[in-house]
């Protein structure tokens, strides 16, 4: 919860590693607007509209007609006007009954391919150039459009249903003085609503009052930002007091003025006017749609934004349209084909011109009564050939690709091994267009919390007075290999989920022998900022912690018998084993990231004053009393914990005499009241008392990684996928996790921001020197940044440094300054690392990306969502690499949308990341399977499919080309029209489609065993221009064979009963039959995974071909439609000739044999990894089985050098709230104070103590 985002002080020379950089996903213009918030009264140039848009949204409570006043109308179109306040009904569907057909058709024809075929269809209607009848294009086009339309329809129906369900949810709305249950869709802006516990919030609502003291309302914002800890919202004091009753609410007539609807989840500004007073509103008063009310009996609110205006809806609207690299390549290839088509058609048209001059014009039998010159005829022939050869651009390509992708997506959805049983979450491919891209990932950008880790902290180990606990032992302290968890049944207040292996510690504690241990847990139970809540009914304790670490520590203490029971503003009650004690809290010295410790000063029931402190080892050790014991032993334990990547905290105490406390307390109060720089003053005072500490021990908390994270990362690394961690967390935490999941190892040299900056500046300086003489833009091969060849490098960089390095901040700051100081020319001479221009900035970015890519791993911490996205787009832009982002929270949304593929971790409460992701599953480890198995398969399948698809269309179409030389370039086709119509639909589609759906060169287990198999995908080796041209040449070769073998056979022969078989129709039958055989058999050869479905498809296609052909050539159909089916008897006459069968066999043989030969040679001489694995499949599978039998060894965390294990994921939490006492009991009303927000708390803190 980073409610307090500190703007890094501009005076600072170096970026602060601890704070998020100037935050927010502001676009530049937004930044400009925010700068206007600063007092600039003299700025008269500001257009008035800006102010209006700032505060242009007026909502009046309980006054529906108000919002329909004409002044709030906006023009919809022409003269229709509509209220600008959206209703609360949401509409995500695109079509209704009437608009479906026209809208859907319109959308479909926006695609170039469909438009192309529509154009062709129009060409075919023109009689002069209509070389093929209209149905050859119309039928496939109708099928293609129909399939897509049906898919769209199904999607839209689902959306309709979903909308209906959401709009139909119930909520209490105040109507005519009383609350009435109403559907969500009927809620309007200005309505007062009542929400009950666990209700979804139906709109963006201003919290007026709730059943809790001070109108505190807990909400779960998981769907917005993925954070599962509860947030609290506060009602305004005035509404809290005066708007509790239904009657009062009914009379409420406040007018809220606030900003226009926007998509910023972290900002809200408004003013409420009520009873001639103005009250400021901010985000703390707002309940946002998508959240859930928790722990609050009921609350009342005023609807500010409804439906489409709500922040969550504003956020979700813009989904970026993503395309895969293959898609792009495919499009380029289609363009290439198109160019080829035009060239070929032009060539043949010229051929026709010459032929006509030479022969055609003299051939009296060809006289067609038209007085057209040779060139005119050539021109017509050009269009004719465009039509004839149109099948080179395969019409069914796009629809087939979509079907394949849909299938792949289904397979992902169906994968049991990506199903997370615990949360009942299957994997879900939310987009169906990106699957093959999964096989080409080069960079993964991962969020940390909730993605790599479970965001669950577990108290694992501790060291108390030099003795380590935590490894499995018996009660007597004898070590065990495999212990069973401690039984907590003796402690009724224990949290049953808590697991601890060491029985000896519990035994010691219960025996009450170990004073240190009891002090240890007492400290844990007392020194924290947790708030407690008693669940009604069971009376079970529920801790509300600002950080999960703290929660884990207090829960541990609870289980060990030191139960934190309750707290008031200045007391803490705990139960120590069997005795309840109340301690007076004298001061709470809260955490902050500089102090890295927190202390609490308590007066014991017996009157002693003691300070308890917990904090980072580095900080604590500096402040230990020289006669503190166990220093060395604890340090050793700390190292051990740190090596095990546990997060450590040192615990210590200090007794304070009453006099000493009095003296300090005075200073403390002074500091609290100091007006300037209060934080620093407080820090200084804290420093004075936190000295001479006595060490008790240290805790070790495990930031639980998700299952299998290190293994997954290791495996992905073997597949040459680089993993970058981008996290908003602190450096220490991130580094700790880096080590935990083996992204960082001890043999790596870790480079931090300063180091990186220096290197980059040096590089830039060199470049400046060089470029002053040499022309810009010339690119030299970049020298590596890290010259030491054996050294592994890692980069840990914070958001602040990132800005520094990429000049982001300076640029923005400068722009702001420019706004204030008036325009100033950009610096002309290089100074203080300022970029001279955009080019230099770009080069700097290139350098940074180059450098980062040289490293084994990169961790960016303290980065804002915007920066996360920036990093991703930098790599995308400069490395031209395919990137994947994985995350779980709202702060990852930006990066998920930016990356080529976004993956959301689902099953968590938050859905924001999932909603904007392309793939969603429950566990990080499924990424391995998604990429190495599904991604690889999809890529291989798609490539195979495309290669084959192009091949089959080339070999199909180019036969016309060869035939042209023998028919006077007259655009006569080599096949029957019906064959042309059905070839791509029926005769060749299914086997290739099935290969695209089902093919596996290597099964999933082997794919996972050999991550190297993933490499061809990254290199794009299976489908590129080279493969395209190979397909083209293969197609040319096959079409040559298909035409010229029958040509040779037909040249001067006759049938077995003397009738001439050398007629056109027989030729068409022979070429078509050969083609069908060749294409299907070739596909069979390329199929590496032969299931009965494939077999069925290949045989089926051939059977269908013969079936349809004999039908079309039958007598009956000719009698009915003599004009459309005129190949009567051609099939039966041609195919009863053994001679023609021999021709077909020869054609098929010559087409296939060379390919087999080349493939065999290729596999024998240059086998790929896949070939080798494939060849030795049996052997490896045996190996795998044996490995399965052996118990897989636990992942071992290597030995590491000394480093601090401190990584407390802490943000200033509830300390202020505790001190303010607002949540604890209702305080008497202070005079006219309206300082309701948490931000004003320090003052109150001062009052309290």
């Amino acid at each position, binding site marked *: 919860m980073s409610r307090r985002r500190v703007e890094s002080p501009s005076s600072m020379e170096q970026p602060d590693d601890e704070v998020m950089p100037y935050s927010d996903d502001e676009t530049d213009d937004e930044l400009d607007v925010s700068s206007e918030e600063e007092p600039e009264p003299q700025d008269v140039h500001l257009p008035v509209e800006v102010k209006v848009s700032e505060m242009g949204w007026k909502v009046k409570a309980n006054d529906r007609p108000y919002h329909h006043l004409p002044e709030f109308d906006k023009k919809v179109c022409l003269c229709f006007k509509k209220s600008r306040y959206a209703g609360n009904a*949401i509409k995500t569907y695109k079509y209704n009954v009437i608009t479906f057909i026209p809208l859907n058709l319109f959308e479909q024809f926006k695609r170039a391919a469909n438009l192309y075929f529509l154009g062709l269809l129009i060409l075919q209607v023109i009689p002069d150039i209509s070389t093929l009848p209209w149905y050859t294009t119309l039928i496939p086009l109708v099928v293609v459009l129909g399939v897509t339309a049906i898919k769209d329809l199904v999607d839209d129906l689902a959306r309709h249903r979903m909308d209906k369900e959401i709009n139909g949810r119930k909520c209490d709305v105040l109507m005519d003085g009383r609350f009435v249950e109403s559907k969500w869709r009927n809620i309007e802006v200005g309505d007062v609503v009542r929400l009950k516990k666990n209700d979804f919030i139906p709109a963006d609502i201003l919290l007026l009052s709730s059943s809790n003291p001070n109108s505190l309302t807990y909400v779960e914002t998981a769907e917005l930002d993925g954070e599962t800890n509860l947030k609290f919202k506060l009602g305004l004091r005035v509404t809290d007091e005066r708007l509790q009753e239904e009657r009062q609410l009914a009379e409420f007539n406040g007018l809220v003025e606030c900003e226009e609807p926007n998509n910023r989840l972290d900002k809200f500004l408004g003013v409420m006017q009520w009873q001639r007073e103005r009250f400021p509103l901010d985000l703390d008063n707002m309940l946002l749609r998508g959240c859930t009310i928790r722990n609050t009996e009921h609350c009342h609110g005023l609807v500010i934004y409804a439906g489409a205006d709500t922040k969550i*809806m504003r*956020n979700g609207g813009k989904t970026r349209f993503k395309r895969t690299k293959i898609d792009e390549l495919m499009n380029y290839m289609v363009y290439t084909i198109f160019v080829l088509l035009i060239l070929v058609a032009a060539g043949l048209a010229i051929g026709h011109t010459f032929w006509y001059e030479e022969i055609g014009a*003299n051939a*009296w*039998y060809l006289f067609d009564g038209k007085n057209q010159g040779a060139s005119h005829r050539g021109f017509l022939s050009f269009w004719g050939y465009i039509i004839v050869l149109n099948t080179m651009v395969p019409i069914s390509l796009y629809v087939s690709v979509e079907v394949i992708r849909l299938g792949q997506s289904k397979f992902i959805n169906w994968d049991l091994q990506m199903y997370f049983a615990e949360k009942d979450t299957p994997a879900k491919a939310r987009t169906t267009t990106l699957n093959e891209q999964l096989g080409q990932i080069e960079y993964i950008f991962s969020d940390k919390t909730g993605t790599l880790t479970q965001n669950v902290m577990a108290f694992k180990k501790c060291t108390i007075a030099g003795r380590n606990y935590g490894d499995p032992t018996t009660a007597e302290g004898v070590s065990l290999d495999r212990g069973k968890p401690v039984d907590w049944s003796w402690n009724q207040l224990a949290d049953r989920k808590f697991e601890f292996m060491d029985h000896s510690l519990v035994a010691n504690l219960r025996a009450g022998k170990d004073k240190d241990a009891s002090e240890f847990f007492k400290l844990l139970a007392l020194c924290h900022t947790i708030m407690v809540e008693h669940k009604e009914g069971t009376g079970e304790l529920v801790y509300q912690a600002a950080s999960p670490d703290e929660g884990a520590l207090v829960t541990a203490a609870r289980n060990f018998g030191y139960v934190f029971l309750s707290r008031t503003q200045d007391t803490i009650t705990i139960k120590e084993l069997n005795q309840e004690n109340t301690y007076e809290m004298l001061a709470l010295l809260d955490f902050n990231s500089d102090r890295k410790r927190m202390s609490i000063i308590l007066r014991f029931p017996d009157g002693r004053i003691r300070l308890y402190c917990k904090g980072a080892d580095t900080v604590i050790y500096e402040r230990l009393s020289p006669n503190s014991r166990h220093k060395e032993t604890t340090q050793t334990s700390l190292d051990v914990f740190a090596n095990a990547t546990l997060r450590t905290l040192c615990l210590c105490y200090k007794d304070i005499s009453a006099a000493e406390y009095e003296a300090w307390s005075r200073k403390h109060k002074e500091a609290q009241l100091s007006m300037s720089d209060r934080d620093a003053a407080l820090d200084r005072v804290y420093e004075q008392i936190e000295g001479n500490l006595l060490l008790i021990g240290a805790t070790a908390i495990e930031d639980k990684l998700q299952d299998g994270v290190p293994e997954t990362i290791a495996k992905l690394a073997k597949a040459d996928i680089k993993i970058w961690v981008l996290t908003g967390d602190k450096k220490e935490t991130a580094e700790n996790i880096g080590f935990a999941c083996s992204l960082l190892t001890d043999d790596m040299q870790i480079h931090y921001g300063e180091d990186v900056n220096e290197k980059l500046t040096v590089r830039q300086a060199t470049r400046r020197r060089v470029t002053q003489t040499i022309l810009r833009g010339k690119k030299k091969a970049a020298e590596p940044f890290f010259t030491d060849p054996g050294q592994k490098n890692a980069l840990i960089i914070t958001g602040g440094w990132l800005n520094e390095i990429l000049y982001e901040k300076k640029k923005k700051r400068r722009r702001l300054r420019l706004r204030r100081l008036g325009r100033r020319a950009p610096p002309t001479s290089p100074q203080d690392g300022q970029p001279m221009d955009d080019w230099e900035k770009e080069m700097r970015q290139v350098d940074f990306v180059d450098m980062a890519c040289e490293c084994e791993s990169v961790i960016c911490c303290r980065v804002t969502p915007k920066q996360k996205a920036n990093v991703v787009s930098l790599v995308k832009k400069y490395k031209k690499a395919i990137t994947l982002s994985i995350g779980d929270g709202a702060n990852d949304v930006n990066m998920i949308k930016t990356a080529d593929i976004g993956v959301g971790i689902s099953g968590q409460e938050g*859905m924001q990341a999932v909603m904007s992701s392309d793939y969603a599953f429950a566990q990080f480890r499924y990424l391995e399977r998604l990429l190495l198995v599904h991604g690889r398969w999809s890529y291989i399948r798609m490539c195979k499919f495309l290669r084959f698809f192009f091949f089959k269309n080339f070999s199909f179409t180019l036969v016309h080309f060869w035939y042209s030389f023998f*028919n006077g370039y007259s655009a006569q086709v080599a096949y029957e029209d019906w064959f042309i119509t059905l070839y791509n639909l029926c005769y060749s589609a299914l086997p290739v489609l099935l290969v695209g759906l089902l093919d596996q060169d290597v099964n999933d287990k082997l794919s996972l065993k050999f991550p190297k198999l993933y490499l061809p995908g990254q290199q794009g080796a299976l489908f590129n221009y080279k493969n395209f041209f190979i397909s083209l040449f293969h197609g040319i070769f096959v079409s040559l064979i298909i035409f010229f073998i029958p040509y040779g056979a037909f040249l001067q022969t006759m049938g077995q009963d003397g009738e001439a078989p050398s007629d056109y129709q027989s030729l068409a039958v022979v070429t078509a039959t050969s083609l069908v055989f060749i294409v299907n058999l070739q596909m069979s050869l390329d199929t590496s995974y032969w299931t009965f479905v494939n077999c069925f498809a290949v045989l089926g296609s051939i059977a269908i071909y013969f079936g349809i052909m004999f039908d079309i050539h039958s007598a009956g159909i000719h009698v009915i439609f003599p004009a459309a089916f005129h190949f009567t008897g051609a099939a039966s006459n041609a195919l009863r000739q053994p001679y023609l069968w021999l021709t077909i066999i020869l054609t098929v043989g010559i087409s296939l044999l060379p390919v087999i*030969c080349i493939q065999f040679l290729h596999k024998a001489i240059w086998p790929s990894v896949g070939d*080798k694995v494939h060849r030795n499949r049996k052997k490896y599978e045996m190996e795998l089985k044996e490995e399965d039998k052996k118990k897989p060894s636990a992942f071992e965390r290597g030995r590491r050098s000394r480093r601090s294990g401190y990584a407390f994921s802490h943000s200033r939490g509830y300390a202020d709230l505790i001190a303010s006492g607002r949540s604890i009991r209702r305080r008497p009303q202070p005079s006219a104070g309206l300082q309701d927000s948490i931000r004003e708390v320090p003052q109150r803190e001062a009052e309290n103590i």
Partner: protein
Amino acid sequence: MMATSYNAKDEDGHITVSGPGTMRSKKPENTAFKQQRLPAWQPILTAWTVLPAFFIIGLIFIPIGIGLFVTSNNIKEFEVDYTGVDVSSPCFNCSQNYMWNSSRPCTCSIPFYLEQPYQSDVFMYYGLSNFYQNHRRYVKSRDDSQLNGDLVSLTKPSKECEPYATNENKPIAPCGAIANSMFNDTLELFYSDPNGTLIQIPLSTTGIAWWTDKHVKFRNPAGSNLTVAFQGTTKPVNWRRPVYELDADPENNGFINEDFIVWMRTAALPTFRKLYRIINKNNNMIPTLPQGNYTLEVVYNYPVRSFEGRKRMILSTISWMGGKNPFLGLAYISVGSVCFFLGVVLLLIHYRCGNQNNSQDISN
């Protein structure tokens, strides 16, 4: 997808309409298909499959090729070009006539000598060269409905037939360029008896068309007799006689005239032959065409010289594989040999490269 579906359950249309009790698990089904574990055969191109295949194909193709070649060679074929390009050729004079419909039929006779007797049925073909019967416009220029005996099409020929759809405001039957350009030379064959007498060899005009064409595709329009049936239509411009006068035999007249049908079956290539007549073998003892001198009498009507075409008359016997064509046999022999050769080469390569690759393992 809009953000509205912020409830996970809503996805995929899984709306839980009734209470939570009906929530079924979203666990995917464990079927072989859905888990992509369908039983499958994963063939690999190994030496053990490829090499034998090549040898076997070689072994099969070569004999087939030899068989075809021998069969083709056993077929007797005689071809005579009677275009009359050469001044010395008997048909030179006739060939100078570029006109259709010349009132005076030009005849010429070409003597030739058959060196071998033709034992079985002999098929007589006319062959045309450089004749683009496969030209797109030409191929299209017909009306299959009309030829099928459709009365409406008979009087209203399809547009495809233009400019041969109507003549002098009367519909043309049969319409179109193909019909219009029907081959109309008359070929007659005379055997010069060793005694010197010319014996006309009987030529069968029927049985030369496909059965389907004759009985399905081509049908005369209904009518008590053909003359009546074709009333109101006119003959194609280039024809001398109307369609119902092509033959005296009513079974071979009108649209179902076999010469007409044969012509209407357009050729695939610009050089083609079409079956003209059949010389049936009458007696098992005597060859159908004994060795000796023959004379081909041509009524030369069909002008080809304008487009440098050639006209031929072919006499051929027939085997199971049709007429004489050494191409296929030679192709089979060569493909078979290449296969065999490739098999050997692959074997060698396999022994040199395959082994070392097989043994080497994958670095992981």
